[in-house]
């Protein structure tokens, strides 16, 4: 298992796509850093109160984090989607599985290696963005580590489901399904907020169920919570229910039960992927 994990990490390091992604990330961080700095500078030149500037920058940072989370989710999905499928299609799996290793070693090794790559990239790129914005505008979110850990968690969910599909479906089909699932889960989160504001219980119920079935959006709420300044939470709480309809707002971190379930969910899906490959004729 560790051999396959190490092989996966080496593959990611040697493939151009990862370096292209890192290059694009640096460009994105530079552009968004420059943009927030200009916003803050212009606001300061216009004598806007500092507290208001900090709140404004925090909301821009949450939007940038959403963009990052989307890119990460797609990256995770398209890294996970060919993880097993490409090995099966190219014949690499034949050479590997003829060795004295279990199919579980291949699946779990692939998952572990990709999770390390995706988590490292999520945490590094997230902290880089937060650091650059902080350096240029003076704004530091309250819980940057919580934000980036949830960012990595969300990417891991996408990666894991893509790996499961990869044991049965071609890479492109797996990736496409994951993108659809991610979009549906996010929309379910938005509808849950709207349901709470307008008292549509069925929206809330369906959205809650979808969050437990596919926890990517629930973990995204953890990212927002890590970036949301306490002042915004305080003011929104005072304003009452309507703030819940904002898909870029979270007044509390995901419940510990949901976090535990997300970990169990990942373990279950990895187990399902092992079962699926074990049942498959190669």
């Amino acid at each position: 298992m560790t051999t396959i994990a190490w092989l996966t990490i080496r593959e990611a390091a040697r493939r151009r796509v990862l370096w292209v992604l890192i290059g694009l990330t640096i460009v994105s961080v530079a552009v968004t850093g420059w943009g927030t700095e200009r916003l803050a500078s212009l606001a300061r030149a216009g004598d806007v109160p500092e507290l208001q500037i900090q709140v404004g920058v925090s909301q821009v940072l949450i939007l940038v984090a959403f963009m990052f989370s989307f890119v990460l989710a797609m990256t995770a999905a398209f890294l996970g989607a060919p993880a097993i499928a490409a090995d099966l299609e190219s014949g690499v799996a034949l050479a590997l599985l003829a060795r004295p290793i279990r199919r579980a070693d291949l699946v779990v090794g692939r998952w572990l290696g990709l999770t390390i790559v995706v988590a490292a990239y999520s945490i590094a790129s997230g902290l880089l963005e937060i650091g650059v914005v902080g350096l240029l505008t003076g704004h530091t979110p309250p819980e940057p580590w919580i934000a980036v850990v949830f960012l990595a968690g969300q990417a891991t969910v996408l990666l894991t489901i893509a790996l499961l599909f990869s044991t049965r479906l071609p890479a492109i089909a797996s990736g496409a399904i994951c993108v659809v699932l991610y979009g549906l889960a996010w929309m379910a989160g938005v509808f849950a907020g709207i349901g709470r504001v307008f008292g549509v219980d069925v929206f809330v119920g369906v959205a809650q169920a979808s969050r437990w079935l596919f926890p990517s959006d629930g973990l995204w709420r953890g990212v927002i919570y890590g970036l949301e300044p306490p002042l915004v939470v305080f003011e929104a709480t005072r304003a009452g229910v309507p703030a819940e309809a904002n898909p870029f707002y979270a007044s509390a971190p995901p419940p510990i039960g949901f976090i535990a379930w997300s970990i169990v969910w990942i373990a279950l899906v990895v187990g399902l992927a092992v079962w699926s490959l074990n049942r498959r004729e190669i």
Partner: protein
Amino acid sequence: MNTGPAVQTDRLAKRYGRVAALDGLTMSVDRGEVFGFLGPNGAGKTTAVKLLLGLARPTAGRAQVLGAPLGDRLTRRRIGYLPELFRYQPWLRAREVLALHCRLAGLARDRWSTEIEGVLALVGLADRAEDLVGTFSKGMQQRLGLGVALLGSPALVILDEPTSALDPVGRLDVRTIIRTARDRGTTVFLNSHLLTEVERVCDRVAIIDHGRVLEAGRLDELLGEPTLRVRVTDLSPAAAETLRPFGPLRLDGEWLTIQPLPPDKVPDVVAAIVAGGGRIHEVDVGRSSLEDRFLRLLTHGSLQQ
């Protein structure tokens, strides 16, 4: 140490839905021999190989590989395999591919260097060891695959079409490698379409079709007795009659055929023809080729029961 057959199958069957890929395959491969596994496309050769390696599960029947039941994980430490359709990681160097398979095969770390250098030299890739596999031609990838299969001096090597991408020099190299492996005591299970290759290197062969063995045995058993064909003129009927004691004789125009004829009798027959006044233009000593036998079997479909 187990001294039983390297491979033994007993009515091994595999179905994919309604399609019977293997339909009661029964055969035995002795230790230390080069065994040719032949059959037309779709005969079930690759399915049989996958079953032997535990990559697929049989629908019925039993089999043992190196004395262990099918799918035994630890036995795979002693098996080398070159798949027919394969690709190694294009982003790895040849030496790294071999190191990866040393690790996967569970070879002791202190043996890696010797094993890797040994197979690189054996398959003629010593000067390309540091090159990325992605830059290799198909023939070079096949050489690398052969090297991977031979790592750690396995007791059984399964080669699925090992020469399909090689030029004549490469094929000659592979024949030499296979013979070297056999001389070391390795059993070689050779799955190939190239009948002339099989004929040159195998001790025994099995010909299968529709998932069943049509015929199996030593090559000389399968190919029958040797034949002498002579193109001769000016041979009188009386002189021809003097040749009958050598064996069944047939005259067809200028061609005289005696089959079977032991090879050591050929000079005597030639001398008798010349003594009888015959003028010899050509002498052809041979037997029916494996290809002839293969085609005949497939045409007549005579099942070995």
